[in-house]
């Protein structure tokens, strides 16, 4: 097992270097000069441009800038934002809990609905229930996020008034930032009603963000279950007279789950890397919106640093998925 983990870990270092090189190069390949963007219509004189370039270190050759950047990263310094002047790491840590909170809730929503729906569809294959689940999940999968979010918002927030429109908490509550996770911070605070407010603010964004993963999980679970249900050992189990629910849950599901876990892992990675549209629509202060704005402003340190951290997180999530695989299915760890 340790050898397996070590093998996986050794791949992380070249991946990490590749990412630093890629983000550093790509953001500089996009046309657009951060100093011009900052100056806007007013423009900036050639001397001032040169002065600011020198101040920000852009006058150095690219390879020098790259080695400086990697040197900084190795010492834990991702640099400061060109716009806000704050350390990139600090900004990331401020915004990341919001993304994690939303991702967890969206993932819970996706798993809680997607998994049972997929199982039911497989068990009731060919029935109206199966068709409905599949149609529903296909619709969910192809739903334009922006439109879906606005639709839910207009129905549930504006017309019915059941949920708040956007944000993380009602403005009447003044919650101190302790952990950055609103659900925890509201519990720590003594403001009555703030926890309920935080929960209600999470409902719509979680549904919107969780819709696509839910559809993916439902479809994956269904096809994987169908494959397992047609195996000989299931027929044997049934022939032995084991209760149908036991066959499905214990015998079939456990094996059918392996590809589903991969999919869940990948989906969580995607969600964490920034649910850009959902965060923008619901004014959710997460990292997706932060990164997109930084690309627009050509805020090099934020783009480089932010993408690097997100990529590392995805690497770690994938690594954990691989390890979970090994635990769930011993054949995998032994075959490598």
């Amino acid at each position, binding site marked *: 097992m340790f050898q397996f983990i070590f093998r996986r870990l050794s791949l992380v270092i070249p991946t990490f270097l590749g990412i630093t090189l890629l983000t550093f190069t790509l953001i500089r390949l996009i046309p657009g000069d951060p100093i011009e963007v900052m100056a806007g*219509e007013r423009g900036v004189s050639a001397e001032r441009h040169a002065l600011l370039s020198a101040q920000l270190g852009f006058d150095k050759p690219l390879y020098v800038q790259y080695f400086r950047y990697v040197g900084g990263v190795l010492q834990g310094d991702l640099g400061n934002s060109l*716009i806000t002047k704050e350390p990139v790491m600090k900004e990331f840590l401020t915004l990341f809990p919001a993304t994690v909170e939303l991702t967890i809730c969206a993932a819970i929503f996706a798993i809680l609905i997607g998994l049972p729906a997929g199982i039911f569809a497989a068990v009731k294959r060919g029935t109206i229930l199966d068709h409905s689940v599949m149609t529903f999940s296909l619709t969910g999968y192809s739903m334009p996020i922006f439109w879906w979010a606005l639709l839910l918002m207009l129905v549930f927030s504006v017309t019915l008034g059941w949920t708040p429109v956007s*944000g993380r908490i009602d403005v009447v509550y003044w919650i101190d930032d302790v952990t950055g996770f609103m659900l925890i911070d509201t519990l720590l605070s003594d403001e009555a009603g703030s926890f309920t407010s935080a929960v209600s603010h999470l409902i719509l964004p979680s549904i919107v963000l969780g819709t696509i993963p839910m559809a993916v999980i439902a479809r994956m679970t269904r096809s994987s279950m169908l494959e397992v249900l047609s195996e000989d050992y299931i027929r044997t189990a049934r022939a032995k007279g084991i209760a149908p629910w036991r066959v499905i849950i214990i015998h079939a599901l456990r094996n059918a789950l392996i590809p589903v876990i991969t999919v869940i892992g990948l989906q969580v990675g995607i969600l964490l890397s920034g649910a850009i549209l959902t965060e923008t629509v619901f004014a959710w202060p997460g990292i997706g919106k932060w990164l997109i704005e930084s690309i627009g402003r050509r805020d090099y340190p934020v783009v480089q640093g932010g993408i690097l951290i997100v990529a590392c997180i995805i690497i770690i999530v994938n690594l954990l998925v691989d390890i979970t695989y090994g635990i769930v299915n011993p054949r995998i760890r032994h075959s490598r």
Partner: protein
Amino acid sequence: MKNKLAALPLALLAASAITTSAHAATTLVYCSEGSPEGFNPAFYTAGTTFDATSKNMFNRLMEFTLGTTETEPGLATSYDVSADGLEYTFHLRKGVKFHSSKSFKPTRDFNADDVVFSFARQWDKKHPYHTVSNGSYEYFNGMSMGDLIKDIVKVDDYTVKFVLSKPEAPFIANLAMDFASIFSKEQADYLMKKGTPEQLDIDPVGTGPFQKVQYQKDSLIRYTAFKDYWKGKAKVDRLVFSITPDASVRYAKLKAGECDVMPYPNPADLKQMASDPNINLMSQEGLNVGYLGFNTKKAPFTDVRVRQALNYATDKKAIIDAVFQGAGKEAKNPLPPTMWSYNKDIVDYPYDPVKAKKLLAEAGYPDGFSTNIWAMPVQRPYNPNARRMAEIMQEDWSKVGVKAEVVSYEWGEYLSRTKKGEADTFLLGWTGDNGDPDNFLYVLLGCDAVGGSNRAQWCNEEFNNLLLDAKRTSDKAERTKDYEKAQVVFKREAPWITIAHSVVYEPIRKEVKGYKIDPLGGHYFYNVSK
């Protein structure tokens, strides 16, 4: 047990009293369109940042009278100008208090040291704070304040003198701009001693009507009314900026009562907003201009007849209807009509393709020519859809034989290339900074600005001399005459096609009282009640 039970209703009563008193405080929620870039307005040029900082947290020596572009005394009670126009002496207000923050409590009132510090930091390259936070002082440099100011002298605790290198009438208006916000020198010294000078730009104290309590990036900013504000406490107790980047979502929040004031509505929503009984849709002509600039250094636009011809060939009304959807007015001058010295008597080029063809023939292009129209990739108040605008113009021009290709670049690239004169014609615009005509005419069309913000590369001696004259005198009547004449020259020489001044709309909840639209584009909440 009995005692505990008896205490329960009391505890509940106390709890409800606390809740009621906390919630009875009036809170005004402003759904802002983005996060501020930082909390030192001197570093930035974006209105979003100014709303969150200078407009509500700080004061300046001079202030804009709310709802106008005129200036009035702020932290200065009055000022004197020397006969040669080179010395401005400001008499400062007494008894003005600074806010306090978690880490800093001021021990003294505002005085001349604070004024000298706030300007010297930006002006003096050797000032210990000059390079803190990598400060780039965009506006201070953009307004050429560095070259203009020769010295800043503290005469006594409540008198400060600015010595200028040349007479410059717009100087007073410049001092009312956001970059001229007054910081506390006492806080700066305290932080420098502590070894954390950059904190001054993250958590500064000001003298304005609201003090910042909490900022959660991309989420919200909370302020409380400053009870010792020198003009008296604001009418609301708390002010919250709920950061909501999407205009449709801001509107949904306004409808649901989650915000009281919202900026920048979608033009498509205006009709519905106007008929909503809970919403008061306020509007005012913006202090801006959207235009098409000709590169006057490139043939055939070196010929004034070609520039005039394309002015005749452009149907502005069709553009306003299609691009602004009613939220714009045709522009005939480079100055917006709300600006003093706007020349009402100018007659615009009417839409007249026949006359256009005739002028083109006279200029030696009877069959037209090929050119390009550059369209900005971003939305701006003065031009909500540059691509669409360029396409309409392309169609108009083709009727007189001019074949134009529509070109676009990424925004930074667009700005840098138009500055270098790579475009034949380009769409752009301007939003006024300080309500002074100089801020439009000299910045956009002055000879000094060629290669910078004068992207038409147009330098006309007659026009430029009129602007220089107007800079030298502080007599407003005389300046008005100069600017009016300059607008005549501009129209005749046609370096631009002036297209539109947009109308600014601000929907607010009906229960909000006292809100005024600022023609300079800011959002002030001092006079607002609920």
